[in-house]
């Protein structure tokens, strides 16, 4: 792994996108940044710009309109990158799975590396998910895993 890869793993920057969540998961993501949970001890920082981000945290069920935005954001992030799907909605649609304007989870839209279940998941769980995503990114940077284009299932098992 080059020096760039190492630096990235020590300080992965996070981009958060709400794809139709109820806000519960979103505020828990923000709660991770606050003094009680403090993800900055892992070098993680929330950033608004996808071009600076390494890890994409997605909450929510996804619909046709925000799926386009989500794909754009993902495409703008530089490799190696990782995606964490947070909450029951992002996994399967959750309580909204029968609603008419719901695609039912993030997985069909962009490849997901880590799934964090819960409604809403606790900040501890979200942090663990983000840390797992960092490991994934490191593996990817060292060439152990192929870049994230065509894989979405291997680590799932």
């Amino acid at each position, binding site marked *: 792994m080059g020096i760039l890869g190492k630096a990235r793993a020590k300080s992965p920057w996070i981009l*958060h*996108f*709400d*794809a*139709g*969540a*109820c*806000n*519960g*998961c*979103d*505020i*828990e993501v*923000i*709660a991770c*940044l*606050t*003094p*009680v949970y403090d993800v900055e001890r892992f070098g993680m920082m929330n950033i*608004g710009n*996808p071009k600076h981000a390494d890890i994409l945290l997605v909450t*929510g*069920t996804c*619909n046709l*309109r*925000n799926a386009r*935005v989500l794909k754009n*954001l993902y495409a703008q992030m530089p490799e190696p990158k990782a995606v964490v799907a947070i909450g029951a909605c992002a996994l399967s649609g*959750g*309580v*909204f799975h*029968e*609603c*008419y*304007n*719901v695609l039912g989870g993030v997985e069909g839209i962009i490849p997901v590396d880590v799934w964090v279940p819960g*409604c*809403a998941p*606790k900040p501890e769980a979200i942090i663990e998910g983000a840390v797992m995503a960092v490991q994934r990114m490191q593996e990817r940077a060292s060439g152990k895993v192929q870049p994230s284009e065509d894989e979405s299932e291997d680590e799932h098992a």
Partner: protein
Amino acid sequence: MARRTTIPFGPQHPVLPEPIQLKLTLDNETVVEAIPHIGYVHRGVEKAGERMDFGQNVFLVERICGICSFIHALCYCQGIEKLMDVEVPPRARYLRVIWSELHRMQSHHLWLGLLADAFGYESLFMQFWRNRERLMDIFERTAGSRVIISTCAIGGVRRDISPENLQYILDELVVIQKTLDDAVDVVLNDRTIRARTVGKGVLTAKQALELGAVGPVLRGSGVAVDARTEGFAAYGELGIEPVTEEAGDSYARTKVRARECYQSLDLVRRAIERLPDGDIAVRPRGRPDGRTVSRVEQPRGELFYFMGADGSARLDRLRIRTPTFANVPPLVAMLPGCEMADVPVITLSIDPCISCTER
């Protein structure tokens, strides 16, 4: 020569935790027109409310908004109780007030923190959110969950709060109030914050009423409307005076929310003091039949439900009008004339909750 430019603000923007797009037409740096584009988080909850049975709907409506989930459930349950003619025991009504007010407090803490963050006041943001964590601990201790606490049920509440936990809440409130004093002092008196909020995004009382504003947006313009004065749950016995400010600008709206934190502290204390003994729920019998409306006050304003039932297990219609849905037209009226740089703060000043708005 002035040139008109159109700038999309959002849907993904650092100041907004949720996606909404404002198409801003600018004349140099001044906003001429703002058109909101929503639909990024529309799910179709109203339809799902007709598919699930009326008992399951409690869990559905709680998940319309993760910030004020308890109050959504409260509004729904009160409507169903009206349709089924259920009398809620007094202890349950007081417990509902306690959880509602704790929710209002955490929501205002969250918002005050986001506002501080929008100015770049990161440590102030952290202070509000650290204080908010104490409220989240109270939820976890009393309800078992941090965000969606699921304690409201048709006919009462699902959990009781033990005397030890009531004492714990009172002890925590002392610490919360102390930290709040310091943080609110900065928000209301800091020179930079005042410069960026006083006189920005002004909404007169007449405009606010005409545009259908609700909650702190309406009260910040000097109109004393608060659904809690209707006296649902135990608000009637506890008594409540709406918090109002006259100026109608971003600063006034901030001040209303800051003062409402203290109002909630006071309400929780009084509700605990006067908490009656007895059952916490009655078993509802039969099925809802007829049509009714239900109104409660959320942290963001008045929440309005229309329910239609035909005596079957499922509702015929569940209409949900959330406070931010009503506060979007006032926002559209506030923005023209302001500077581009003030758009994020003015947008934030209505406390937008997009997941509520689009359902």
